[in-house]
């Protein structure tokens, strides 16, 4: 498949994989739950893909991956509605969207599997590592939004002023944009330093 996204390094898939569930990570707890569901779904779909790679066409594996992922998210909803109804209600539409996270992460790894043929264990480890990184990112975003929305992280008060505006959908896009700008500025500065030391 000649799709540019799947030619990127596996790590670069994290950004697009964040997209479907970014809005659901409104607190550390919500980010953790979403990340855990994604991790379980990736771990469930990994052996299926590893075993069938080369034997079953990619399109068929992709459909199977999506069905497995949505099954995991449905089961997770059942468990959450009993154990933590508040988080289950808050995650709402975002739980089934885990399917798309998993498809993006798995499809990237599948592409690499078809091109470079890494060993099954490497594919499995790479899938799990990407899902763990995604969980970390969701927990981080959840923590930032929790602080902005409530002024506290768990029971610890952090902000003395009300910044809940920046925790809402519009505000959080500006916050994420600003954080990305800082990251880009640091990357460009280190690039310039590197160029100067080489020159």
């Amino acid at each position: 498949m000649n799709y540019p996204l799947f030619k990127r390094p596996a790590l670069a898939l994290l950004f697009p994989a964040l997209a479907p569930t970014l809005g659901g990570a409104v607190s550390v707890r919500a980010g953790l739950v979403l990340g855990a569901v994604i991790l379980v779904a990736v771990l469930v779909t990994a052996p299926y893909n590893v075993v069938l790679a080369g034997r079953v066409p990619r399109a068929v594996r992709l459909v199977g991956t999506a069905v497995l992922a949505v099954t995991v998210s449905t089961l997770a909803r059942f468990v959450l509605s009993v154990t933590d109804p508040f988080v289950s209600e808050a995650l709402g539409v975002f739980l089934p969207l885990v399917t798309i996270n998993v498809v993006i992460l798995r499809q990237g790894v599948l592409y690499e599997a078809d091109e470079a043929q890494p060993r099954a264990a490497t594919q499995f480890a790479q899938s799990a590592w990407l899902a763990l990184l995604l969980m970390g990112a969701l927990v981080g975003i959840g923590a930032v939004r929790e602080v902005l929305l409530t002024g506290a992280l768990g029971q610890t008060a952090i902000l003395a002023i009300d910044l809940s505006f920046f925790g809402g959908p519009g505000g959080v896009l500006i916050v994420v944009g600003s954080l990305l700008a800082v990251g880009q500025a640091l990357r460009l500065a280190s690039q310039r330093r590197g160029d100067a030391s080489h020159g």
Partner: protein
Amino acid sequence: MAEFGYLLIGGVLWNNVIVTHLLGLYPFLGERPATVAQNGILGLVTTVLVVVAVTAGFALRSMVLVPMELIYLEHLTLVLVLIVLLAGAARVLRRAPAWMPEHLVLRVSLNSAALGVVILSLERAAGPAHTIVAALGLGLGVTVLLVLVEAIEERPETKLLPAWLRGMPLQFMTLGMIALALQGFSGIG
């Protein structure tokens, strides 16, 4: 009739899924077509697929899932409906003209807006007509934002911005500001 207008305009403005749920951010975090027109086509194809998926989903829910008490299979059913529709669209668009965005169907399928809009429309609206109009409004809302952000980024003034602000940071800040502006319409009706 006014209700339908409210659903349609609300989906584009104050109920826009990108603004309210941060859904459909994939084109901004992953891959986006290169021109305003191609972004518009991507949004419109997403809208058409979503409206067809919502119609099929509503029919399946009211005729099969609810009578047979299988409502817990709703999300699985919707994913399968979308997969069938996307496979059909891929077949139809196999020989798409050059002015259409490349990998159009793959872009739609990797965008959470499609599945998200289908689920939200079915959750929110009551009757079949309301559900379809709600889906149409939400799909058009995604199209409008895709076109708006690309149109802003294509303006020559953005080339004057510092390098650290260009690209993804600018897209997110623009989206954030558009989101705040659209929320201002929420008092209508």
